[in-house]
């Protein structure tokens, strides 16, 4: 992390502490996060220009770019990346804004809020499969509607894999709404929204309009980076696009993965060129979004000055709630569909329930499932363990030196989430291979670390800094060294956020598809890679089994993060938020 310059004359005692090994932890963290990205980008850009000695070309003549431009699906694929990404981001943000504006602090909002952790921990692939099981013409929704409309076979409707990417957009929205909700909640904790809203209401503004006019601008400023993350992610996602996205042609990111796997090594150069294009598209979309921010700000300012007290509140409030409930329900009902298919015997259309319920699919996949679960656990525990040590080291160094994370530091922290995975992982794989380093478990753990680190940092940073440092002053006055303060006072008091951050890290690792696939070279099979590999086979029972297992793997740590502090501090009222 980049920290602000320290004033020269800080007391010597503080300096002494900061000179310890802790000083190197932020540097190490930075290297672990940004090293692979920089290396991977270099390993992508050079082949894209034609420099790839492994395939016998060092021409730097831009031939791969010409080959990319010659691919007939390029225009559609690039357009899809932009439209699905922008639409998913705008819709997610819009839904989150409407739900907060209309319902923040009310009972329905509290109910949605309680669903947040489980919704967040459902991996993207499982959510996408669940949605597919719902909205396919042979899916649950159509089975429910069939007797009403009189269908005895599924209608021939292009819903899944539609060429406009609408299903993909819907799947992304269902997963990004919980993420942005969490981010907005954290942002609201730092701004005095409640009183602003009350003031606006006292002036006759409706709840929704009042919130949008007084609180939203502040909240948006705080969640701007997470919104950019959603945009970059939605534009370049692979696993959800394989499951829900169009196939004639694929989205650009999926096509890049296909090129990476072509037996003709020369296609990797095209893949690299595609990756560079994907990166450029994301950069362009981010710029476009920024421009949009200014326009919205201008229009919004005029709207605020116009003094409208909320004519549309009556329409928008229920609309927002419906959209929020719908996106949560889609994920949850999808999960139920996954569970049902995992235990289904023969289940024909338009039956709403399977003929028989059987454990056959589970026992059949038991062995493979156990092995994949073990690998998932090894990778997740290792990467999260390392991330936790590094993050705690950074935060403690920050505390002892008194230097705070700067704005630039925050950007660096978000960088691994803003650079599309598809833009640098192929290059990283090529580099690893060229360097003779075997792909396998350790590189996969390192690759997961790149994405686990920022999430653990973002999750733990705020509660860590919100801790009352006067506890440290008192403990030091009682003779406790900085180390003792950390281990005997701060960590026990922050047990809950530390465990929550751990759960976040584990869930992030469990959900990773592309790093496991590309850096693992096929040898590292996790629940996620196995589940996505099953997508091509269309065996709903197998998909159900693996997706349910994958979701459980991500959910279990959250349950433990809630349960362990409740158990450990059952007699300590002061630690129950």
């Amino acid at each position, binding site marked *: 992390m980049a920290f602000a310059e320290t004033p020269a004359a800080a007391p010597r005692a503080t300096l002494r502490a900061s000179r310890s090994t802790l000083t190197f932890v932020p540097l190490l963290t930075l290297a672990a996060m940004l090293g692979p990205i920089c290396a991977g980008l270099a390993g992508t850009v050079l082949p894209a220009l034609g420099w790839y000695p492994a395939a016998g070309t060092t021409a730097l003549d831009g031939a791969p770019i010409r080959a990319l431009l010659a691919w007939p*699906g390029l225009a559609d694929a690039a357009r899809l990346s932009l439209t699905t990404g922008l639409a998913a981001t705008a819709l997610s943000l819009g839904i989150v804004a409407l739900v907060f504006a209309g319902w923040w602090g009310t009972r329905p909002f509290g109910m949605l809020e309680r669903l947040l952790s489980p919704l967040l921990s459902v991996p993207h692939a499982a959510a996408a499969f669940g949605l597919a099981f719902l909205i396919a013409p042979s899916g649950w929704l159509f089975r429910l509607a069939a007797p009403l409309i009189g269908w005895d076979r*599924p209608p021939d409707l*292009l819903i899944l894999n539609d*060429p406009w990417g609408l299903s993909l957009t819907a799947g992304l929205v269902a997963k990004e709404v919980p993420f942005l909700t969490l981010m907005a909640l954290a942002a609201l904790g730092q701004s005095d929204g409640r009183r602003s809203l009350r003031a606006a209401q006292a002036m006759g503004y409706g709840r929704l309009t009042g919130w949008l006019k007084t609180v939203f601008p502040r909240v948006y400023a705080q969640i701007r980076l997470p919104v950019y993350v959603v945009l970059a992610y939605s534009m370049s996602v692979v696993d959800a696009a394989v499951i829900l996205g169009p196939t004639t042609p694929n989205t650009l990111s999926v096509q890049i993965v296909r090129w990476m796997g072509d037996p003709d090594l020369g296609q990797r150069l095209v893949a690299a060129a595609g990756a560079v294009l994907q990166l450029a598209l994301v950069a362009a979309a981010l710029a476009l979004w920024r421009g949009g921010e200014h326009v919205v700000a201008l229009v919004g300012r005029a709207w605020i000055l116009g003094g409208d007290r909320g004519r549309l509140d009556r329409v928008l409030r229920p609309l927002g709630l419906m959209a929020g409930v719908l996106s949560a329900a889609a994920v949850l009902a999808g999960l139920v569909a996954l569970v049902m298919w995992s235990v289904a015997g023969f289940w024909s259309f338009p039956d709403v329930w399977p003929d028989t319920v059987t454990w056959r699919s589970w026992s059949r996949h038991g062995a*493979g499932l156990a092995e994949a679960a073990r690998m998932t656990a090894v990778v997740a525990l290792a990467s999260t363990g390392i991330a936790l040590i590094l993050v705690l080291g950074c935060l403690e160094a920050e505390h002892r030196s008194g230097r705070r994370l700067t704005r630039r530091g925050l950007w660096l922290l978000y960088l691994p989430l803003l650079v599309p995975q598809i833009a640098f992982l192929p290059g990283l794989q090529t580099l690893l291979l060229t360097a003779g380093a075997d792909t396998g478990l350790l590189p996969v753990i390192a690759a997961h670390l790149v994405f686990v680190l920022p999430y653990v940092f973002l999750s733990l940073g705020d509660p860590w800094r919100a801790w009352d440092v006067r506890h440290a002053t008192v403990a030091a006055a009682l003779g406790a060294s900085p180390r003792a303060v950390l281990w005997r006072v701060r960590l026990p008091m922050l047990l809950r956020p530390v465990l929550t951050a751990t759960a976040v890290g584990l869930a992030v690792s469990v959900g990773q598809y592309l790093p496991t696939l590309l850096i693992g070279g*096929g040898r590292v099979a996790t629940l996620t890679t196995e589940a996505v590999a099953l997508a091509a086979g269309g065996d709903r029972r197998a998909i159900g089994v693996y997706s349910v297992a994958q979701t459980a793997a991500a959910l279990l740590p959250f349950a433990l993060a809630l349960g362990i502090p409740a158990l450990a501090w059952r007699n300590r009222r002061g630690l129950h938020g």
Partner: protein
Amino acid sequence: MRSLATTCAALALTAAALPALADPDPADWDAVLDEARGQTVYWSAWGGSTATNDFIAWAGDRLKEEYGVTVEHVKLADTADAVTRVLSEKQAGQDADGAVDLIWINGPNFKAMKEADLLFGPFAEQLPNWQYVDVDGKTVQTDFTVPTEGYEAPWAMAQVVFMHDTDDLPERLPNMGAILDWAQANPGRFTYPQPPDFLGTTFLKQVLLEAVENPEVLMHPASDADYDAVVAPLWDYLDELTPALWRSGRAYPASGPAQLQLIADDEIDLAISFSPGEASTAIADFRLPDTVRTFVLDKGTLGNASFVAIPYNSGSKAGAMVLANFLMSPVAQVHAQDPEVLGYGTVLDMDKLPDADRAEFDALELGVATLSPDELGEVRPEPHPSWTTRIAEDWQSRYGTGQ
């Protein structure tokens, strides 16, 4: 950087020369068995079908028990992934202990690997169980017209059949023209996997085989001179068929098994399969309704053998050979032919088998939807791989990019 690359290449050459000395010799089978004990074989095989995955797991268990060889199934979305892997290892100079020990392979991928010297061998015809293989009656020594020369060992026979749901399509269809007519009369009820999926490409080849005037031309490499003219009838056929396909041809199932789900959901009534026993197997585990039956075309359908090959840089060649030999064994072959398991055709010659083994085959219940060997009719050989590659590519620009 250029000097680095040169050094790498030099190292690669040196390294390539070394392990050749230590490679196991399949003629000395006892030595192979000794060396294999304790080895781990990473078998790269397509992982999209649970039935195949289960069979591979079964073979792994047997090998562990009988020969002390551990088998790890590396599940691929596409066989080409494994080829790429070996290729990039060779480029990177990793000439020993590569990631892949055995590949389920055939057709263009075999041709690519053989031409690039990426394969270990010859070994297949020295394996003990080769004595039972039906060398005369089945295409086990050529793979898509390319001579195998012992660089891959056959383990299953495949032949194109069409699965039809007799509830909606009671009668068999005699030829591709009839399929087109039926599809146009029943729009949205037929589709095929999206090329370059191998089954989708197989469908294109089956069309081509019936559409060309002289099929003999397909046995030779495609040339620029005749390619366009030869394949023109294929595109004509698809231009007519596509609007009548499921989703009007704007989406396709990703693979063969994905079609099964579509039949089970009653979205389609007709689908192609490359395994005569697949339908029976799928009925047995609820993936297809029990009204599904299979048929072949009057003029015969495409057939080929599935092979396994060993990359030149495998670190467990002995173990891989033991596995390849086991796959050709009567016990593995009868297990694979069981419709409850895989329903794959055997590569063995019944007349060469010991009586006890033959009895095992005779006792197999082939399954309700499986045609008998007689009913399967004529097997048409695969065209030269160059045709496959080109039509798969052209299909993508014609139908695979929404244009």
